[in-house]
Structures are given as C-alpha cells and as structure tokens.
C-alpha cells in the first residue's frame, strides 16, 4: 500500500539546511497496523506529513496504492487526500460551529455529496463509533474520548485506504486511550491500513509492527538498544 524509496527532506532556515529525513526506506502492506515511534526531533512528524501528502519531499519516491506521489499541485493533493486518506489528530480538530454529525460529514462535502446524503451516512458512521445519540451536539458539549471518536468517524466516512493517526491518545486518559485503540483494531480488522504515530510504548505494543525513527533514519529495535547501551557505557 505504501512504499518509500530513499525519501529525503530538508528544511531551509535562512541559509543553513537542516536535514530531517535522511533516506527513509519502508514498505507498509495493505491491511497492516503500524506504529511510528521516535523521540521528538527524530523526524516522525515530518514523515507523517509526507505520508499524508500534507507536505512535499525533496528526493526519493513515495508510492501510494501503486501510484507515484510527487510534485502534485495543491488541488491534486487535496483530491488524493480526500479520496485515499483519513486523518485523526491529537487535538481532535473538530470544527467548533458544526455538530458531531456535520463534522463527520465534512470530507463528503468536499466530494460534493448532497447534504441529505452525507448527513445520512454521517449518522451511520457515528453509530459505528457508538455516538448516534450525540449527533446533534457541538464539540464543546463532548468529552475528549467522544471527540476523538467523532474524529475517527470523520476519518472513516470517506472510505479511505489508509488512516493516519497523529498521537491519537496524546490528550486522553488511559481508559479512553484503550477504547480508542480498540476502535482502531476493529477498523483495521475491516482491512483498512492504519499508521499511528506515538511515543507511548503501551500504544505501539498494540500494533502489528513498530517503525522506529532516530535522527531521520529508520532503525531496528536491536540497533536502538545498542545505541542506548553505548550512550550509557560512554558515560
């Protein structure tokens, strides 16, 4: 589903260049449930931006569902995101003036689905995350866990191939975190590829595979342990 060949990306701050991704090679198969881990500054946010077609990369190749994603116009990128990808954010990012149902329906609005049709679908998806009774509540009237479930329904409604979740449990307590992860597992069981960025080991352990990032490169678990040991030994 996702194939990365030597992806590189650098940020230019003034005249100096700061390499964030230094050649990422990865393959995520269809239906996989993968977590990306790494400390802050490891490049995991940048990698997620590239994977989610939210940002460009400098060199390498990124194949999504077999098509090369490179040098797209803003509009093309918007259409691809809308059609293939779903997003779940740490801070939920629901629109405050829309109720739960309208928030869920938003991706369909950009697909020009009629209002009646998309609200009907939105109710179905809210039902799937157990929030049908809350359809007409504004986000400010929902708890954190409920908001995230609305956000998940919103990510699902466009029938995406891949869902990206950026620290989806970062703002939730452990009980609701578990509920959200259970929901993700259920979604994954339906065959949707899931990529979760997290720094919590408990969360990443619940996924099929962990991709660890360090200083812009993917490292194996053993390598990381060695590096950590070396750091300790050097002290």
């Amino acid at each position: 589903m996702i194939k990365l060949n030597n992806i590189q990306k650098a940020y230019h701050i003034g005249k100096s260049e700061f390499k964030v991704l230094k050649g990422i090679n990865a393959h995520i198969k269809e239906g996989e449930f993968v977590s990306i881990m790494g400390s802050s500054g490891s490049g995991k946010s940048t990698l997620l931006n590239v994977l989610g077609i939210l940002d460009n990369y400098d060199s390498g190749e990124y194949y999504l569902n077999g098509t090369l994603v490179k040098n797209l116009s803003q509009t093309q990128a918007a259409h691809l995101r809308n059609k293939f990808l779903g997003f779940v954010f740490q801070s939920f990012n629901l629109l405050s003036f829309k109720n739960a149902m309208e928030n869920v329906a938003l991706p369909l609005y950009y697909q020009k689905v009629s209002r009646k049709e998309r609200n009907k679908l939105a109710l179905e998806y809210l039902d799937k995350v157990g929030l049908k009774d809350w359809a007409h509540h504004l986000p400010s009237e929902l708890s954190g866990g409920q908001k995230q479930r609305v956000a998940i329904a919103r990510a699902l409604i466009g029938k995406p191939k891949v869902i990206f979740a950026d620290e989806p449990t970062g703002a939730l307590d452990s009980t609701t975190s578990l509920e959200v992860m259970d929901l993700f597992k259920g979604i994954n069981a339906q065959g949707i590829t899931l990529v979760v960025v997290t720094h919590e080991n408990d969360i990443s352990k619940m996924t099929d595979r962990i991709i660890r990032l360090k200083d812009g490169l993917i490292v194996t678990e053993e390598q990381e342990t060695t590096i950590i040991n070396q750091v300790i030994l050097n002290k």
Partner: protein
Amino acid sequence: MIVDRDNWQEIFATIKKNKLRTTLTMLGVAWGIFMLVIMLGAGNGLRNGIMGAFGGIATNSFFLWTQPTTKPYKGLKSGRTFIYDNADVEALKKLPSMDIVCPQNQLGGFRQSNNVVRGLKTGTFNVMGQYPEFILVMKKDIVKGRFLNQKDIDDKRKICVIGPRVQEVLFKKDENPMGQYIRINGVYFMVVGLTRVSRGGQEGQEDAQAVYIPFTTFQKAFNFTNKVGWFVVKAKDNVTAEQAEQEAIAVLKERHKIAPDDKVAIGHWNMGVEFGKLNGLFSGIELLIWVVGIGTLLAGVIGISNIMLIVVKERTKEIGVKRALGATPANVVSQILLEALFITAIAGYAGLAAGIYCLEGLNILIGHEDGAMFTNPTVDISIAAKALSVIIVGGLIAGFIPARRAVAIHPVEALRTE
C-alpha cells in the same frame, strides 16, 4: 457556492462570535456608502436646481438681438442703431444649418405701465408676438386650450395664450378664462390657451406673466409693420449651436451693413455654450464626489480586509484541518471571499438605504418651491446601481488579500499542536 448552506453556516458562526468587532467594521463601509449617496444626491439637487432655470430650452438654440454698432463701416458711423425685419427672417430660414427661426416682438414687461386690461382689473405683462414653432425651441406646458397655430398666423387672428400669473390677476379663482376677452393696448384678444410654469428662477416668473399672440397679429395691431425685435433660433441636430450662430450672425451683419469684426452690434446668447459650461461644472463636482466618496469607502473596505485577515489568522488551524480533509485551495478562497463580500454587502446596503432615506426626508423638507437653488436632491436608480457595484468591488478587494493569506496556509498546520 452562493447557495451553499455550509458556507453560510460558517460565516454566521464567525460573525456571531465577534459581533462587536464585525459591527464596528461594518460601520466603516456603511458610512462610506452613506456619504457617497448623500453627496451624490446633494450634487444632483444642485444640478436640478440650476438646470431647472433652463428647463425646456433646446440645448442647441441661441438668441440674437440688436445693439448699437461699435465700428464705422461702408461710410456709416459707429454707434448706429438698427432693427431686424421680416426680410431677415426669410434670409435666416434659407441657411441650411437653421432648424427653426422664431422672430420675436414684445410689448410691456418690467417697469412698464399697465398694458393689459379686463373689466376693472389691469396688469403689466409681457405681451409677445410668437410663432407656433416657438414651443419646439422653448417648451411650454399647455394646461388648458391650445397654443398658437399656423392658421392664427395666416389669418392674423386676435387670440392669445396666457400664463398662470395673468390668469390670477385678471380672472376670479373659479372663472374659466377660455373664450374670454382681454384688452391689450386697446385691442381685444380672445384667450384660447393657458400655460404652466415649467422652469425655475426669474425665467419662470417671466413665463408666468407672458401673453402670447400671433406674430403677424402683433406686427399689425401694434404698428410694428415689418419690424422684428429679436430671434430665437434652433440649429439643426447635425450642427453645433455655435457654428449655426456664427453663420446667422454673418448673414445679419451683411444685411445690415455692420463691420464683420464688430463683435457687439449683434447681441447673442448661446444655450449650447452655456449648457456646456454648466455641464462641465457639474461633471467636475460629480467627479470630486466620487473621488472623495470612494476614498471614504476605501477606508471602510480596508477595515473589512483587516478583520478578515484576523479571521484567517484565528482560523489557521481550522483551515489546515479542512485542507487535510480534502478542501481544495478554491474551496478556501471562495469561503473567505464570500464572507468578505457578505459583510461588505450588508454594510453597504445599510449605508445605501440610510442615505436614500435621508435624501427622501430632505426632499420632503425643502419641498418643490419654484426657483429654488436646490431641487429634488435624490439619487436615481442608476446611481444606486453604481453604488451597489462599488460595494461589490469593494467586498472583493476586501477579501482578496485575506483569501491569498488563507490559501498560503499549509495543511501541515492541522498537525501542529498549540
């Protein structure tokens, strides 16, 4: 896009959240349009008042009269007076640039003794020898009866058409003047028509006390033989009044042995030239009004542009989220533009309505007094339409910079946690 309920939901949500801020900004635009409309209306009022004095005069017409010569010519000394006659009329009519040539004669008028009598009532009025074509050069509204006709001229009939002041002085309020006789310098004339005053100022007063009788009757009854007092001439539509005037003056100079370079002997007043001058003046005033008005409006529009920039700034994250969910740059631009346009349009419409309301009030207040300097200070529908298009353009300008700013927001913003 315009009928999209989701767009409107968002616009109303933003406005509701920032009621005070939005209202204050809208006040700027409303004030701008209000000032523009008020000034345009006032300009119109002034134009109507001044131009009212010329009401109904063909704009390509001119008047010719005689004055003492100022240059000796062909053995004749300067300071000589001369009089036009019927042969001049024929000579002028032969010129191809003349459309209508109306010779005029007048009796009485300003500071003269009473010349019109009916029973025990007397009055001093301007008795004019006139041709029927006269109303094609200077419009006269006939309230009752008719104006002079060619038969009156041919038969030298003793009939007359009177102005409202004449009726007021010579007739009782409930009396019908039609078919009644009045005595002018001892000769009886039957009243066949009544005019109305259709222009302001001194000219309107003169119209009110005019008595029109057939030109031929005038010459015969009052011993004018073939004398002509002055000419009112209308040029053909394909020549300018100035050019026709020059040709007419040349012919009259030739006929009366006046030096070709004598600029005084033939007195003249050209409506076309005067009209052009006034028109230029009022166009200048109008231009000034638009410059000042649009300047004021621009200040309001910049205000809206400013709050829209703040709106975009406040909603950076939200716009990023929408972009991540699949909103195209076009979606984002149209949303911001629509919002700016909506705020501007509502404010502008309020200003427009307030302005028109005030002008109507002013109009009722000053009324329709004859000869007022300031008449009917209203804006017509075309000005309202112009103001409205200015509002729409203003709204688009107001939305342009914020919309560009909004499009520049990267979808990555959605992932940034504050």
